[in-house]
């Protein structure tokens, strides 16, 4: 299982990549492995305002439909439209494909997230 350095991680198995005020949000390798083949991504509404931890969309796999949370508060600037036709990219390249881009409302949200090392330990514990 791959965990990428330089990203922030949530307990809901989402990653956040920060570029300036923008937060790119995606699913971790751990998450896609557990979900199985992803068949549909319900993207968040553009310009929607969300609090950290809120449900912004849904991920449907052959096993189940799961909520997609945002680890940070903010406004949705864009969704990754490639996933409309190719949701399987989340399985193939979980860190290469973001699901949404948010304009962060509060950088302090990042302090509540995990580093790659902390997230690796978190996953080990979950897998037990």
């Amino acid at each position: 299982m791959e965990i990428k350095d330089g990203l922030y991680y949530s307990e809901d198995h989402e990653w956040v990549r920060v570029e300036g005020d923008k937060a790119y949000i995606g699913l971790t390798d751990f998450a896609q492995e557990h979900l199985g083949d992803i068949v549909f991504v319900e993207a968040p509404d553009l310009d929607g305002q969300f609090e950290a931890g809120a449900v912004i969309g849904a991920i449907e796999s052959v096993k189940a439909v799961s909520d997609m949370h945002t680890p940070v508060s903010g406004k949705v600037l864009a969704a990754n439209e490639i996933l409309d036709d190719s949701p399987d990219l989340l399985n193939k390249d979980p860190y290469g494909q973001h699901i949404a881009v948010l304009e962060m409302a509060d950088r302090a949200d990042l302090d509540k997230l995990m580093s790659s090392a902390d997230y690796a330990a978190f996953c080990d514990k979950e897998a037990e």
Partner: protein
Amino acid sequence: MSKLIFEKSVPGARAFALPSCNVPEPGELPDSFLRQEDALLPEVSEVEVVRHYTELSQRSYGVDNGFYPLGSCTMKYNPKIDEWAARLPGFANIHPYQVEETVQGALELMFDLEEMLREITGMDRFTLQPAAGAHGEMTGVMIIKAYHNHRQDLHRTKMIVPDSAHGTNPATAHMAGFEVIEVKSNERGLVDIDDLRSLMSDQVAGLMLTNPNTLGLFEEEIQGIAEVVHAAGGLLYYDGANANAIMGVARPGDMGFDVCHLNLHKTFGTPHGGGGPGSGPIGVKAFLADFLPVPVVVKRDGRFALDYDLPLSIGKVQSFYGNFGVMVKAYAYIKALGASGILEACENAVLNANYIRTRLRGHYDIPYDRLCKHEFVASATKQKKEHGVSALDVAKSLIDYGYHPPTIYFPLIAEEAMMIEPTETETRERLDDFVEAMLAIARDAVEHPEQVKDAPRKAVIRRVDETGAARNPVLKWTP
């Protein structure tokens, strides 16, 4: 795979010959409403039509073919005498618009069925209208909403469901306009009552709960749960999908539930899953009876009547009075078993589940390995970790052993879940044979995992591409 009936079409082939029409043509219909070209119906001879559908019918699998341990679905044997009862001309040949005086027997059956369901559940009034379990849930949650609204308690916008809930619970709450709040399960697989307490507020309309839950475990703290919900002004909804595990022993009404549904097509032995329509009656405590759908069956001066005079009713939820034929079958089922038979069926359902659970122990992980009710969850985590064989592979492999697979990947709180519900109608020999198949698959997973991953190998249709079907669904045939 054989051809579709459309692919068998040959121009000019006919399975029927209608005489010429002796009714005047509807000349006054506007052209825009008339079909300009023939409907694209398949043209097939009568014998080929019969062969086509006979072949399909022989490929289908139901409880009359074999064991069907589909968790949460209670695929028990459907006694044939119930079919006889539903086909009695007095029940089968009546019309919903007949005057009440001419259908007294049918109304009496509905009245008596309601009384029996009241006794089994401990609820005060029932509606027999909902056509299935999820429809019953919707009706029940609408009644909860109507109750709060009637009391001018207008801020209850949230419905709590456990993380182990049937998917229909959050879907129902959402459909009824509630925000769905998830309550966590504790390490024993039961509702975390502290988490529930922290979620309760004057904004919560209620809690939807199934007991035993989807792990087949009885919510031992149900009275404490009911107190927490009621103290904050919420109502308790009982999802009756698992009622087979408690009937004759414990009653939702005594546990503190305010609304409950029953699946006649699960618990009370009527066919389902393609075998017939369902029926999901709703029972309520007396203080909610005014909100029930209309009409309700009442008895006045020794005569039975349909009462539409419920001013607070949420309205009708189904055309006419519900799936009446299913009611007849459930009535016959309950009458045939009697009180002692209902209890015995429940006890055997629990015994059978525990028998399979203990026999699979050591071969498969059992995430919550203690006394269960009518079903339990096994897991393929060991097979997945050691041999790459998943719950899906085990399920597909069971097809090769002649069995319908159990429910898999549900409940979501168990990894690689396989939810097994044998029901009370299976014999010891059948259970043993199923266990042997499961043990053989566990051995196959070690010795030749590639074969398990390739299963089913003996079925007419081999492993289907479920991912491809979901990602690129082909929903209609094109020539």
